[in-house]
């Protein structure tokens, strides 16, 4: 998704007209048609990503196909009554959109066809070998990146952008160090139908231990629904101490900031799960210490991989796309060699400064909320309530997540 968006974004940029862009896809060309039933893999698109997609003309296609904006986000704690709500004032602007991945891909592919004279797409092309150039000119060596495909075809390019996912071969071949660890968790995804509205669907991402995830997947649909409902509604993890502490704190806050609490929405009840919509995938964190080298740049999951709890993964990728396109556009307008390290370094600095705090926050939240131990529960309960009662802080968080 991020790779296709990058190719599209470059193709539509006015300063890059006349440059030859090639998108290499390892898979086959998929004819995308929006299926009747909702697909399992969805992404939450924040306003910043929506801006990028509308800039390349894909957003209109997405709106015409299927997408659901959301205006509020509410977070409950399983071990206490604490919760936090994110919403914009007056509930007018959207906080974000939930879009199926297939819909996004279809929209991007359609836009790619619009710039097909500049952006070529080659399917079933897996790169097997990369030859990296020396950082400076010598008489003997080719100064460009050489790519050899499985078919034997040789390509050369001034700039290689790696968008090949968390197990990026570009990143490995370039020898970029990666900080990564597994969360010992898997995410179970499914499409749910809630009891209130019969014709709309919701997307579920349930992050839990590998064993539990496997068990959940093995359940039949009825039992799966029961499991979800009990996870939402059960109080079994609540303890008296936490409950008391939480209540006291909340009263104290409401004295200080009378407007600090917003109407509480109860957790939903699930009525049924979409057929054949369950799936699971492992979770981990990964961050490449360098996003760029001479004539190489990484974007999307190849550069960073996060936990899905905040719905930020693809948004970070789209942020990379927007930033790199901007820098390449400026470099082309200044007549610079597109693979030159100077502007690539600027891209790396800008994105790392944005991505690292976000990844750290997500990781901390994940660790904080993975535990049932009382001190941590108390900490997060009080912390959640405090954050919930301070609107400027919430606005800052929302603004940061919307970029």
């Amino acid at each position, binding site marked *: 998704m991020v790779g296709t968006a990058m190719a599209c974004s470059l193709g539509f940029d006015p300063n890059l*007209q*006349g440059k030859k862009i090639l998108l290499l896809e390892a898979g086959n060309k998929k004819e995308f048609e929006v299926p009747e039933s909702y697909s399992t893999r969805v992404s939450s698109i924040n306003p910043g990503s929506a801006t990028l997609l509308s800039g390349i003309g894909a957003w209109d296609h997405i709106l015409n196909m299927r997408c659901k904006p959301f205006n509020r986000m509410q977070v409950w704690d399983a071990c206490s009554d604490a919760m936090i709500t994110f919403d914009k004032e007056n509930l007018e602007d959207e906080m974000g959109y939930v879009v199926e991945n297939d819909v996004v891909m279809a929209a991007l592919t359609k836009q790619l066809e619009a710039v097909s004279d500049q952006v070529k797409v080659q399917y079933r092309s897996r790169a097997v070998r990369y030859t990296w150039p020396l950082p400076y000119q*010598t*008489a003997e060596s080719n100064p460009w990146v050489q790519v050899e495909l499985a078919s034997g075809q040789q390509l050369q390019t001034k700039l290689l952008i790696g968008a090949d996912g968390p197990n990026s071969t570009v990143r490995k071949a370039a020898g970029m160090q990666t900080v990564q660890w597994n969360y010992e968790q898997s995410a179970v995804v499914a499409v749910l139908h809630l009891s209130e509205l019969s014709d709309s669907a919701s997307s579920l991402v349930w992050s839990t231990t590998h064993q539990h995830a496997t068990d959940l997947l093995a359940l039949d649909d009825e039992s799966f629904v029961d499991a979800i409902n009990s996870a939402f509604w059960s109080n079994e993890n609540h303890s008296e101490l936490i409950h008391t502490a939480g209540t006291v704190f909340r009263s104290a806050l409401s004295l200080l900031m009378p407007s600090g609490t917003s109407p509480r929405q109860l957790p939903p009840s699930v009525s049924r799960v979409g057929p054949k919509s369950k799936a699971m995938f492992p979770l981990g964190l990964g961050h490449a210490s360098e996003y760029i080298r001479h004539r190489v740049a990484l974007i999307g999951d190849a550069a960073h991989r996060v936990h899905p709890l905040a719905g930020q993964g693809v948004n970070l990728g789209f942020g990379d796309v927007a930033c790199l396109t901007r820098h390449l556009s400026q470099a082309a307008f*200044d*007549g610079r060699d597109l693979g030159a390290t100077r502007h690539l370094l600027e891209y790396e600095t800008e994105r790392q400064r944005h991505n690292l705090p976000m990844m750290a926050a997500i990781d901390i939240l994940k660790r904080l909320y993975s535990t049932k131990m009382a001190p941590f529960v108390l900490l997060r309960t009080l912390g959640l309530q405090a954050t919930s009662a301070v609107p400027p802080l919430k606005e800052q968080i929302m603004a940061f997540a919307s970029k």
Partner: protein
Amino acid sequence: MEVRRFFMRRLGSGTTFRRVARALHMPTMCVSVRPLSCFPSGTPDQTVAKKQQHAPCLMANLTCKKNFWQGRANMCTASHTTLDPSEMKKFQSLANRWWNEQGEFAALHSMNDLRVPFIRDNLLNRNGRRKPGSPLSGYKILDVGCGGGLLSEPLGRLGGLVTGIDPLEDSIRTAELHKSFDPVLNNQIHYRSCLLEDITEEAAETFDAVVASEVVEHVNDLETFISSCYEVLKPGASLFITTINKTNLSFSLAIVVAESFLKIVPSGTHDWDKFVSPVDLERILESNGFYVESINGMCYNPLSGSWSWIESTAVNYAVHAVKQKAQPEFTETTAEEHQDQTRTSTGTSV
């Protein structure tokens, strides 16, 4: 040697220095068209700096020196046969370092951040036609003293048809090699090893822009150089010059600090006498049929290795001049004619 040269500079004007230098048998600078970087560059190369005891000089023999002592009225023409072999060898070692962005020419590389937008924007403002992705498409540009092609390549990438000339063959060869890998650039840029004066006849009124970046402070006869620029430009076309001012500050920064203390410019690269103040340059330009559109000061930060535009033209500056479209017919009025004219006018004295 370094110390001696340092004190000799201190003697005051360059002429005094030259008299002493001649007595000490030190070759002096005559005509050189920027074979070396002229500003603080990234990494000092001590071996090279030691070899560069003598100023670069394309004319190593008596003809030049004799002309020089006669005053700077005559221009030294350089031909390859009179090129000093030892000078050639020095630049040979540097010729393949043009494209090392962290090397001796780092400051020239980063100067592109200023000069390319300067040229591009001024040309586009004057003419306005802009093809997306190739803003300088259709412009014929001459890069005088192109060296390794550091400025020619960005201009070529922007779509300009660039002719790069430099008297040093090795630099031209480096430039040719570097552009050869890019098939598009290969067709956009043509290099030639020659002087500007050599092509004024065949290239009369050919170019939409002439760029003389870090060149005029090495030229012996600025008047002739500017008038050669005039000849090769189309009417209404632009001349872009970046050079160093002739002030106390430029002496202390560009020569003393850069050459003698920090040794980040090879000693003797610059001759303070050859520096031109903006006022003098403007005068020469205007007397040769140009009018000066803008003069901007530039400043180099050796810590960050980057350039920026500043108000003050005390050290480095850039000039954009435009060749006047039609030279008004100038007929010399003699003294009698002038008296007739004043007598027939209605008595107001001018």
